[in-house]
């Protein structure tokens, strides 16, 4: 039966890990602006493309 004790304490520790992640997310300001990141995410593709283009052109110059 003592296996239950171990399992339960493990589950609690995992849960505490998630609680920690939640606290971190609040403290790091993720709840302060819930709109802009959703838009910003869509731009990143374009930025990466440009960057690869730039590195390609840089290579050509070299």
């Amino acid at each position, binding site marked *: *039966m003592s296996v239950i004790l171990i399992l*339960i304490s493990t589950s609690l520790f995992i*849960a505490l890990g998630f609680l920690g992640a*939640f606290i971190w997310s609040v*403290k790091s300001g993720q709840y*302060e602006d819930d709109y802009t990141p959703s838009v910003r995410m869509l731009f990143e593709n374009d930025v990466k493309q440009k960057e690869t283009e730039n590195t390609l052109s840089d290579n050509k110059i070299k």
Partner: protein
Amino acid sequence: MSKSEFILDKKISKKDVCFHCGDFVFNTDNLIDEKQFCCNGCKTVYEIINQNNLCTYYEIDKTPGVNQNHEHRKGKFDFLNDELITEKLVHFRQESIFHVTFYLPQMHCNSCIWILEKLPQLDLGVLKSTVNFIKKEITIQFDNGKTKLSKIAEKLTDIGYEPHISLNDVSKKSLKKIDNSRILKIGIAGFCFGNIMMFSFPDYFSLGKFDEPAFKYFFNYFNLFLALPVFFYSASEFFISALKSYKQKFLNIDTPIALAILITFSRSVFEIISNTGVGYLDSMSGIVFFMLIGRYLQNRTYQQISFDRDFTSYFPLGVTRIDKDGKEQQISVKDLKIGDRIKIFNEEIIPADAILFLGKAIIDYSFVTGEATPVSKSIGEIVYAGGRQTNGAIELEVIKEVSQSYLTQLWNNEAFKNKTNVNNDDSFIHNVSKYFTYALFSIAFIAAIYWQFVNPSVTLNVITSVLIVACPCALLLSATFTNGNMIQQLNNLKFYVKSSSVIERIAKVDTIVFDKTGTITVQQIKNALFFGSINEYQKELIFSLVSQSNHPLSKAIAFSLNNYKKHFVRDYLENLGEGISGIIEGKFVRIGSAKFVTNNKKYLSLGTQVYVSIDDNYLGYFEIKNVYRNNLKNVIEKLTKKFKLSVLSGDNNNEERNLKNLFGENHSMLFNQTPTDKLNYIKDLQKNGNSVIMFGDGLNDAGALKQSDVGIAVSDNMNNFSPSCDVIMAGEHFHKLNELINFCKKQKTIIYSCFGISILYNIIGLYFSVIGELKPVIAAILMPASSISIILVTITLTTFFAKDLHD
């Protein structure tokens, strides 16, 4: 409705709109890269963006810009180089790395976010820029060694996002940090609640007969451990609020709640330690969790809206001072002294009372006094602070300091001093909770007496059970969830209330007072009516001429003649303060003041009349009129049945006849009202026992808005300044006013219905506790069941009552 929307309504082909801002293009020769621009401002912005290979800006959203048809003055932000100002604006600094946040009112679309976050490419000294779209703010990290604050501000202006730096930004050094603690409290309470429930399952399903008692200890102490943060952290605000109300000898709704939490917790601790039971920790964390969610929904703040603005957020921070030797210098408005000579450029706000020294002043006071027409002032006259110069640059000599000026005096009125009237505690919910608490104590007392005779050993048990199960959390939940839902519904109509108590106050109102300019009239759109005879061809000529000018009156005329054909204008001349002239198809057209057009003083020139002559033949004049809001008559008709209405206007009584037509004869209408008159009018109404809603829009209404029971600021553009008030509503939904007020009146009905349901649950719970049979399982079922049914009922009812709003 903005101008561009209006034009799209008329289905003008896409070809004719500016590539940058989407406005109608009057002059089709402004071409680069085969792209059309409405003005040089827009073209310049395009050039800068193009040079930096940032044209993706134009791909994310079509015509993402804001019309740039106004001049930017070089060196406008020089005052930002001042060490003291930098110090106050910068909110973080480490060696040469500075962090600063600017408010950019022009931000409006996804392209804006994209280009603004590319700021490091436009100014190499900028390390990182982060946009908060909802707040329309940009936080910039920059290296002060490589660039300067003023340079960044200028760069932002160059690409069409002029930062709005007001006096308010430096007067308070408090960074408005959002308080995240409630989210944390909810999260922690939720986490502990869920886990305690899980560890309580063995007990719920009577698996309590453990083979090993060690298990029981283990679960119980685990629960206790999890309940500690709920009790000490999450529930702390209930204790603090209860203590406060106890000190004020007032029983608010948090008092019985704090008591219930305290008793539940102590009894649970006692049962666990004495090994006589498992306690009610699950129920306790559950109610704390639900109540916190309710509070969160009710008090959710709108980041983008500020309710507590005063004149400091309207006044600019920088002003141009002219030294004795004629040198221009940018200084902070706060440093202005009596006798200073200042220069005010076109479209700038006059920061202090001053005497006009040089130039022609035509000052738009519509926001400050409510006068609809700009006033012209001649040299030597006093110009009051708050007006906006609309006619080129002028020079002034300051005669009063900023804080002493005529306009800012209003804020010294006592209405602004007693801040206690924003107290939530006068809500009827607190009254109900008081009776609830008394009833609860009586039941506990009677039950205690009964058991004292029957079986004294369970008396304490019964008393605590009664207090645990009949926790007034249901009352709080009904109120908070209802308010939260109603606020959400009102938000959907852009009716933003400052706090939930405002809804209750709206429901009590019996008198409504309106301001005229900008409140019942539309702020931007003006209508031009022509008096005289004129043919279609002449209209074309007039249209061609006024399209050249940026003067508000010309714009109004161009706007009402929108569909006419345009001809080429030769020898165009704009005489500031007088009018415009030009030769079109060989005809000499003049538009402007009576004197300018007719060379004759016979025609009395009122500011709202624009005269027209072609080849020196006087044709007639345009009367520029404010346009009343959509369906105003309809709204007034509905409101007249239930409320006493009045109109207070800072303007002259030109419109009295029209207003009488709209309102009928019975309602009082006062004109030429100063801000203090308005405030006193509201005060008098209140002395007669009336409860007043004041509708206003400008600084001149600020006193009345503050004094009234509910001050509602009507705004056509949410980003614009609106004075301190309880509600900010969008002008576009003004016609729903009657429905909005009716909806607010439903608040009580909804909350009482929820009370009814919660009382049902309470009776069941009390029955079990009075007979001394309150098992943790019963508490654990009743508690969430009652909470969830209350939430469902309030959502259903609010949605049902909100139906009228959305028709």
